[in-house]
């Protein structure tokens, strides 16, 4: 079994090294490339590379995201002396082994497809990035074997200094994985934002390696992907736990996977709240690099994409909150908060509606005439950033309130100032909402450049409120009486399907954003440097893209289901025992 898990990793690594050998400056580069493009049967070369890249990326995101919270969970287990977190971390890591194999296989598939279908582009990129590709391959091996040591040494190095060394392995696993991602990110971001002095006439041999590597969008993508990987990893772990919950045969098993699903969802939604800020940073850097590219992304032929994105994020917020609200049914004392959920639902739905309102659209003359202008007469007022920023900040605040009520549900504070503290929390919420709404309204009366600055105030208000309210809540909860242990495992089945919807939506959203990031290059392999002259040069419309994305998501989940099933045949996880411990 273990050997069977290892061979695809080795195969992927060997494949990559072989490819690099074939196309190294001493190999293929020295030869004449007789053709720019190859053919792929039925679906065409673009769709073939698209699918391989997207599925590889989904697995890669999973194997980069999960180690981050596995190592955090292990730390909580070590320093908080709570063994259930250690067991949870181990089960997270067990999922990694099989996912790692799939990542390597799809990476090799992608590499072979690029070499055979886009040989000239591949040669161009290797001429610039060959040294980093060798480092990538080396780190890939280091990462793989660190993972094996981390997982298989879990029980052997379980106590004292050995445990700390084991935790150190987890940290190294993250370090290696992050560097691997950063290297690969440099290749794709170079295609988006090559240095200004690189022109179509610049020989790739003359391109300075570091300026190509650390290009304008490299760090924004690194940050955005790191956070997104945590979100994605949390969502997939949540879906895995949901499936295990639904098929559990004992109460103990059900309790364990209920808790695991809760943790996965908490991580996913928690990191999701931070993600828009990284997205703003990336968007700003794209505009800085090329305003034309930025316009294409936000106001050009891709403008409708943002409406779909808003719809998807709306689904995420609603499904995440729904899961929390249903979960309150298994917490004694939570019934006192149940009446508030309907109001929170109204706020969330209203927020989604505002966020999904189109702003500037490419419209035909007939459509402009029908609307009576370039903005819709009624909806135009909601389609501007003032309204959208206000809506999304209120949605984040509402989701945090859901989490807070969930957290508070079975606690009965004993500190004397509990009532005052709760009142302060309420005042903070109201003041924060007031600030967000005030700047939202004020934004209509100022110029665009001032309005953009307002979004910073709104975001800072929300973040400050989240941290201060949480700090007060932790203090209030110190020594609190319990109204009863959380009844892990006593969760309606419908809540678990919400976790599946979350996982599918996150995955689809990643595919959509991948299409946006790659698609804004339009008919350029490397923006304004290497032109795409293939029959697939035009970036396709969203309808076609959505079909490809759905196919990628199906392939991904099909493989995940298969490898988890195979993994489950050979090895049973050690359950955390939350059912008997009544953990929170």
């Amino acid at each position, binding site marked *: 079994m273990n050997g069977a898990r290892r061979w695809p990793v080795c195969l992927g690594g060997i494949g990559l090294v072989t490819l690099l050998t074939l196309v190294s400056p001493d190999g293929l580069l020295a030869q004449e490339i007789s053709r720019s493009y190859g053919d792929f049967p039925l679906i065409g070369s673009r769709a073939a590379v698209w699918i391989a890249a997207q599925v590889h990326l989904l697995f890669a995101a999973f194997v980069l995201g999960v180690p981050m919270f596995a190592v955090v969970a292990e730390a909580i287990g070590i320093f908080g002396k709570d063994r259930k977190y250690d067991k949870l971390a181990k089960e997270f890591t067990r999922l990694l082994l099989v996912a790692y194999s799939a990542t390597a296989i799809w990476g090799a598939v992608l590499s072979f497809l690029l070499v055979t279908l886009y040989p000239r582009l591949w040669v161009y990129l290797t001429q610039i990035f060959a040294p980093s590709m060798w480092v990538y391959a080396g780190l890939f091996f280091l990462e793989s074997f660190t993972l094996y040591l981390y997982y298989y040494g879990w029980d052997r190095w379980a106590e004292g200094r050995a445990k700390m060394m084991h935790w150190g392995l987890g940290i190294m696993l993250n370090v290696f994985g992050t560097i691997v991602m950063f290297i690969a990110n440099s290749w794709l971001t170079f295609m988006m934002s090559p240095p200004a002095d690189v022109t179509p006439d610049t020989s790739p041999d003359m391109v300075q390696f570091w300026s190509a590597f650390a290009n304008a969008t490299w760090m924004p993508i690194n940050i955005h992907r790191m956070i997104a990987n945590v979100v994605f990893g949390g969502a997939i772990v949540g879906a895995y736990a949901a*499936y295990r919950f639904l098929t559990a045969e004992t109460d103990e098993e059900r309790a364990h996977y209920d808790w695991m699903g809760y943790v996965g969802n908490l991580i996913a939604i928690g990191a999701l709240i931070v993600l828009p800020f990284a997205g703003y940073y990336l968007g700003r850097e794209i505009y800085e690099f090329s305003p034309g590219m930025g316009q294409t992304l936000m106001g050009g032929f891709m403008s409708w994409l943002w409406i779909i994105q808003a*719809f998807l994020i709306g689904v995420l917020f609603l499904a995440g909150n729904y899961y929390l609200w249903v979960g309150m049914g298994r917490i004694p004392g939570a019934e006192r908060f149940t009446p508030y959920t309907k109001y929170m639902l109204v706020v969330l739905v209203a927020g989604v509606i505002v966020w999904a309102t189109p702003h500037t659209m490419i419209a035909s003359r007939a459509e402009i005439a029908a609307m*009576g202008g370039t903005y819709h007469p009624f909806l135009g007022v909601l389609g501007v950033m003032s309204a959208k920023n206000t809506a999304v900040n209120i949605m984040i605040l509402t989701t945090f309130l859901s989490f807070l009520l969930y957290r508070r549900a079975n606690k009965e504070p004993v500190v004397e100032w509990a009532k005052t503290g709760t009142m302060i929390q309420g005042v903070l919420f109201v003041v924060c909402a007031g600030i967000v709404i005030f700047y939202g309204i004020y934004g209509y009366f100022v110029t665009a450049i001032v309005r953009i600055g307002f979004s910073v105030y709104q975001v800072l208000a929300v973040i400050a409120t989240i941290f201060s309210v949480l700090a007060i809540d932790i203090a209030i909860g110190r020594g609190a009486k319990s109204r009863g242990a959380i009844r892990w495992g006593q969760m309606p089945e419908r809540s678990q399907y919400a976790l599946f919807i979350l996982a599918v939506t996150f995955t689809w959203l990643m595919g959509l954003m991948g299409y946006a990031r790659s698609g804004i290059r*339009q008919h350029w392999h490397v923006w304004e440097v290497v032109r795409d002259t293939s029959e697939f040069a035009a970036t396709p419309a969203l309808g076609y893209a959505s079909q490809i994305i759905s196919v990628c998501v199906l392939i991904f989940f099909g493989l995940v289901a298969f490898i988890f099933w195979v993994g489950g045949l050979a090895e049973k996880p050690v359950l955390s025992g939350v059912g008997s411990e009544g953990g929170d």
Partner: protein
Amino acid sequence: MWQTNLKVLAVVLGTLAVFTIVSSSIPQLQSVVPEDLSFSGDVTAEVLVAAGQTLFEGAGGCADCHGSGTRAPNLLADEAGTGLIGVRCASRVAGQDCKAYLYASLVDPNAYLVEGYVPIMADMSRTLSSEQLWALVAYLQSLGGEVTVTGADIESEGSGESTGAAVPASAAAAGPTSTSTDPVEIMTANACLACHIMDGAGAPIGPSFDGIGGRLSADYIRESILDPRAGASEGFGALIQLMPATFGEQLSAAQLEAIVQFLTDRR
């Protein structure tokens, strides 16, 4: 177990189906790859204008910003009372004629930034060929002005003899496109059908010219041409800002009356 599997599969497939259907139901826009253009020395203005218009509205991506007038000056209609681009281009920079100004604005846009806008436009010569740039210039000139781009401009640019501000000065300047009093010629030269429908051609931004004489009096039509903001036709109030307010200066009295008479007769 299998019942659970089927339920999970249904949830996954259902979610994917909803996302795919919603994404396929919205307007489907794809990027357009610019066509390579090649013109002979005796290329006509009509050919250049047609190629430029295709580029402007499609692969060039110009209309994304220059079509609405919110992110960049509106090139399809009047801009703050200064007239159509083919008219206002000649008076933008002292000593630079329309053709030279338009070309230079394309290849060095930040040096020609219009007040009130931010420098977001890229040097178009990075992505467009000389032929494509000149076709765009021709199209923009055609919006209210006289097209003076010729094959010689493209050839001289191609041979590296001349660029931007060094473009040969045009004899044409801003103002009426010709002295003709043929109403159809005048309306064509001033791009009236960019916003008005007539005999099946044009776009429904402003009131249709079909049957206009039966709906509006000659005085009202005349006033609407000279001072469009004085009273927009019903249903077109929000769009009136797109109508140039400069025809009073551009058209001679004879030309104005020819148009008024022509439209009044269209009952």
